[in-house]
């Protein structure tokens, strides 16, 4: 897989019974799948579950040994549909993706899967990307669980619990013929910990066995009249079966004293944060020794009415900790309490924020408010935080995400900025992927982003007036193969949209960690690559298509874009902008170059620099580039006051800043240094001769300088 190796992680997947696994939460879940005898795994990469996909992709030999089928699905819908294998056969299957966006994409398949129900355990591993560091809209996957009637596990952040919930999740799925989602929050995915491993289990039936002996059950197919049957079955059979399984296997947990007149109901994923808030209030310790009763929901859907009633009975008030909105759990708990005629007061969103991540601070504040009202003697003294000086805040700059050093996508937007100088502002329909960073400083390009692969579709309503400006759509190669080829390009051809689409073809699904895709240039042992994007769009019927093989040629990029925007040709125009993701390229070539240099081979390293003498500190170059290695430093000139531009040693020599200086006619301060290791003999001789002549000229120049020196 791509340019990163996960060999070390693959070794962890091989641990046997009794051995200690140590590592991140998502890797623990990956191992748990093998322990549970999973027969097939699929999914679509994305934070925070990329690791699962990457490790499986590198674990091909192990998966072969076990008879487990793995594939990187084209998108989440494809992954969701893959679970169809568990409908008729006792095959345990798991798929993984980033939620809520991945669940949105998969929802059609999931609805159908949930309607017909499953025979083998079907597990959907949801990387819930909510809260700090999230890159997507803030929504809850919970709604999908409720509307499609799938069970949702939210295990407390503790590796043994998470691993156990994977196994139990399969059993629950089989016991209730229902697909099960297991929600892994971002921090749980990256949390380190340990658990005692079990042996991996070969699936009792492999996908090959199933294909060999197909079976068919008309009642499981989502077609009338079976669908009406499914709806009834969901309510009357599967739901009670699930509740019975959860109750009998004690999937939910209880902490703290048995008796008290108040208590707390918490989503499993928030348990650790709650414990810290309690600890700081003097009501728990670092070992979870809570002094208040806690009912920890490792299963957040369905709720188990008996357990809830039992927990709440005899309590004046119960605090509900439920992150995000709407507060589905709180609503249902209230219903359960009313039906049981219990008068326990539920306190939830009235003391806790309706929106935003529930951090230790937030839960602590909510808890204090709850205790102040219902158990004042236990309420912590509220500490007033030392106010932070406002001018301190004014001095600490924000650090919006941006393109990496040497990113090949940067010159595309530099070129677009230059075109905008000529043609005026453009409407740019952005997509999902690294290129979305164009909306942030210094580029400020991009008006909307509607979803992965939807850049072109997002521009489809923009039909220019006669001679008017065309809209521009962006799309990454990842998004292109995810669905952009059909929903974007195909749609634009069919409707004869007059838009310009730029497909950023950097060789990987770069934003999700550099996975290979159809158009990757890398060789991949277990998949086929090198399917050109231009060929695909021409196959779709695009007549105007150009492939630029070096995005760093800013002038050419600018000219091609200008041509696309002004050409008399009607219909969609597609520019495929190719250059390899620099992050992956560096990962790939750095060791190669170091090895070549140590073997005495000729190696050229390039780096850029800026002459502080000629730089006047306007920073137009930075506004057209924003490269992390293109920075500033105090002006060494005692007369000038504004900082000069400076290129630090992290420069990878992509050349963008020089090309931008050329294309935008900026200034003569940029230089490129080529450092040649192990030069050839004639090269050394010629360099020596040149150096001798130049040295003589420099000495004569120095004399003229000395003659008029201060």
């Amino acid at each position: 897989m791509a340019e990163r190796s996960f060999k070390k992680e693959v070794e962890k997947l091989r641990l046997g019974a009794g051995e200690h696994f140590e590592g991140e939460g998502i890797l623990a879940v990956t191992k748990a799948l093998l322990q549970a005898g999973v027969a097939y795994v699929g999914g679509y990469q994305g934070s925070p579950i990329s690791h699962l996909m990457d490790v499986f992709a590198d674990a091909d030999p192990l998966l072969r040994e076990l008879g487990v089928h793995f594939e990187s699905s084209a998108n989440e819908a494809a992954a969701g549909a893959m679970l169809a294998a568990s409908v008729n056969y006792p095959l345990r299957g798991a798929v993984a993706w980033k939620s809520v966006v991945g669940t949105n994409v998969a929802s059609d398949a999931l609805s159908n899967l949930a309607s017909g129900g499953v025979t083998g355990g079907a597990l959907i591993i949801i990387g819930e990307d909510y809260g700090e560091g999230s890159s997507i809209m803030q929504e809850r996957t919970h709604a999908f669980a409720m509307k499609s009637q799938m069970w949702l596990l939210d295990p407390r952040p503790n590796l043994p619990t998470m691993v156990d919930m994977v196994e139990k999740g399969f059993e629950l799925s089989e016991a209730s013929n229902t697909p099960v989602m297991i929600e892994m929050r971002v921090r749980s995915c990256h949390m380190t910990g340990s658990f005692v491993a079990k042996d991996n289990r070969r699936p009792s039936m492999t996908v090959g066995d199933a294909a060999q002996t197909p079976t068919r059950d008309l009642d499981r197919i989502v077609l009338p009249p079976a669908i009406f049957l499914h709806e009834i079955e969901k309510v009357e059979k599967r739901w009670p079966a699930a509740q019975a399984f959860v109750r009998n296997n004690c999937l939910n947990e209880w902490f703290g004293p048995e008796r008290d007149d108040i208590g707390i109901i918490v989503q499993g994923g928030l348990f650790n944060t709650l414990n810290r808030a309690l600890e700081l209030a003097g009501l728990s310790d670092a070992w979870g020794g809570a002094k208040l009763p806690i009912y920890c929901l490792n299963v957040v859907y369905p709720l188990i009415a008996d357990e809830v009633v039992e927990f709440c009975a005899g309590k004046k008030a119960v605090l509900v900790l439920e992150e995000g909105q709407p507060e589905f759990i709180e609503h249902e708990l209230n219903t359960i309490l009313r039906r049981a005629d219990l008068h326990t007061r539920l306190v939830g969103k009235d003391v806790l924020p309706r929106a935003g991540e529930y951090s230790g601070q937030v839960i602590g504040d909510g808890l204090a408010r709850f205790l102040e009202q219902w158990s004042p003697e236990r309420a912590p003294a509220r500490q007033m935080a030392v106010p932070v000086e406002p001018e301190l805040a004014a001095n600490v700059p924000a650090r919006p995400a941006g393109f990496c050093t040497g990113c090949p996508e940067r010159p595309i937007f530099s070129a677009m900025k230059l075109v905008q100088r000529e043609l005026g502002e453009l409407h740019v329909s952005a997509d999902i992927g690294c290129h979305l960073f164009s909306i942030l400083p210094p580029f400020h390009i991009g008006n909307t982003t509607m979803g992965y692969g939807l850049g072109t579709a997002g521009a489809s309503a923009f039909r220019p007036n006669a001679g008017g400006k065309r809209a521009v759509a962006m799309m990454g190669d990842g998004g292109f193969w995810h669905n952009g080829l059909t929903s974007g390009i195909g749609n634009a051809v069919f409707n004869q949209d007059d838009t310009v689409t730029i497909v950023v073809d950097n060789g990987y699904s770069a934003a999700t960690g550099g996975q290979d895709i159809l158009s990757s240039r890398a060789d991949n042992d277990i998949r086929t690559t090198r399917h050109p994007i231009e060929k695909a769009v021409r196959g779709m019927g695009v007549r105007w298509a150009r492939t630029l093989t070096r995005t760093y040629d800013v002038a050419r990029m600018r000219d091609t874009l200008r041509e696309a925007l002004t050409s008399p040709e009607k219909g969609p125009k597609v520019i495929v902008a190719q250059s390899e993701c620099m992050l992956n390229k560096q990962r790939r070539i750095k060791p190669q170059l170091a090895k070549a240099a140590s073997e005495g081979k000729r190696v050229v390293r390039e780096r850029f620099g800026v002459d502080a003498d000629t730089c006047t500190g306007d920073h137009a170059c930075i506004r057209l580039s924003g490269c992390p290695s293109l920075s500033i430093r105090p002006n060494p000139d005692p007369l000038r006051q504004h900082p000069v531009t400076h290129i630090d040693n992290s420069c990878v020599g992509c050349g963008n800043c020089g090309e931008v200086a050329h294309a935008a006619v900026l200034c003569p301060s940029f230089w490129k240094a080529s450092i040649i290791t192990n030069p050839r003999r004639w090269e050394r001789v010629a360099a020596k001769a040149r150096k001798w002549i130049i040295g003589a000229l420099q000495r004569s120049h120095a004399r003229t300088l000395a003659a008029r020196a201060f």
Partner: protein
Amino acid sequence: MEIFNQHRDRITIAILALGGEGGGVLADWIQVVARQNGYVAQGTSVPGVAQRTGSTVYYIELVRIGAAGGNRPDPVLAMMPVRGDVDIVIASELMEAGRAILRGFVSKDRTTLIGSTHRVYAISEKSALGDGTGANARILDAAERRAARFIGFDMAEAAQSAGSVISSVMFGAMAGSGSLPFPREAFEDAVRHGGKAVAANLKGFASGFDAAGRALPAPAEAAGPRAPTTAAGRALHDRLCRSLPEEAHALATDGVARLMEWQDARYAEVYVDRVEELAAIAPALAAPAARHLALWMAYEDPIRVADLKIRATRSAHIAREVRVGSGQLLRVTEYMHPRLQEVCETLPRRIGSRILASEGWRRRLEPFFARGRHVETTGLRWFIVLRLLAAMRPFRRGSLRYAMEQERIGRWLDLVRDVARSDVDAAVEILGCQALVKGYSDTFERGIANLETILAAVESHVIGTPDAAARIAALRDAALQDEEGKALGCAVSQLSPVRQAS
């Protein structure tokens, strides 16, 4: 060794790092050293977009195994720092230390703040048209006041001189701070356990460990004033020391040196004449005039650029900056883009202006200067071209550009003199407006246009108003707000709300 948390069994650590600085590696090392010394360690992070220049918080909790009570269940550790509950904060950069303070992670009663004092500028600071950088002193002051203990030094510099990476220096500083109850060898074992670049990392570690024990070094003393080395230099220096107020001496000395190098002693004399004339009107004008007049008189033209690019000192500087080793060869390529405009301006006045005025000549010649040039200054061909260009210096006074600039300077100084007679503060601000003139080509033209807009506005609307100086400064700031001149346009239009409609 001072050991934290006598009253509780856990230690909480937050690392604030930028993408690519090895925050994750550092977090791993800390967990390894803790696990191997009788602690349960849990780390979390939200790496997300960190690799793409964002800042990330890595969070670690350590709990002693088998602490009092025995037979305890697994600890339940938090996954994000809580305000006022962080024992050790490590920040890889000065503003990240500031961010840790802003987020409430640094508290007076318990936090050891270990922070690098170097700067990695944010895009808002870098992309400003002038100086957009935050105030370092303000952050250092807050770090000293708000942490129980602040250990700060330039860790990037330490890493570079140790030939290592900043994460190992931070780890060393952490070990050296004594804020974790483990001996030095235990930390070093953790680095070895990582198995990657062990020798370099241990070097970085050692440098961090040693520096943590030392106090914050005092900022380096500024270099002394420049001294003349030639007879001509001495004569001008003596003259300006006699005639100008003391606060202008250093700047005027730099100005004289710049102009002698840029053209010759005669040109520097003109400069001193002009500064003296302004100083005679009001001494307060001397220092700003010395600065801005020197910068304008030594304007950037192809002759100057060529002169700077071919110097031996520059070659040496580049070789140092890119770290050329022995046995390696260095080639340097410049990105230059002289347009027909610049070429003509370097030519004698009549010829240059005739070509620029002629449609036909322009059409024929412009294609030759439409593309940027890759000028290899380590190659003979381009080196000789640049050397010849630099040799045109003696003829510069006859060039079109020279005439244009002297004319502009003349108008600017006239206005300064005019205003200075009634409002010295405003005159100082007008001098300061020279800072808008920067760069080459479009950038230069934008700067000149902004300056002329301001000077025109000053003449027609600002002179004689009571707060003229502040208003001129405001106009200058507006010109540095955006490239398109929107803020300046807005500021200028607001100057004259009662302008009659015609």
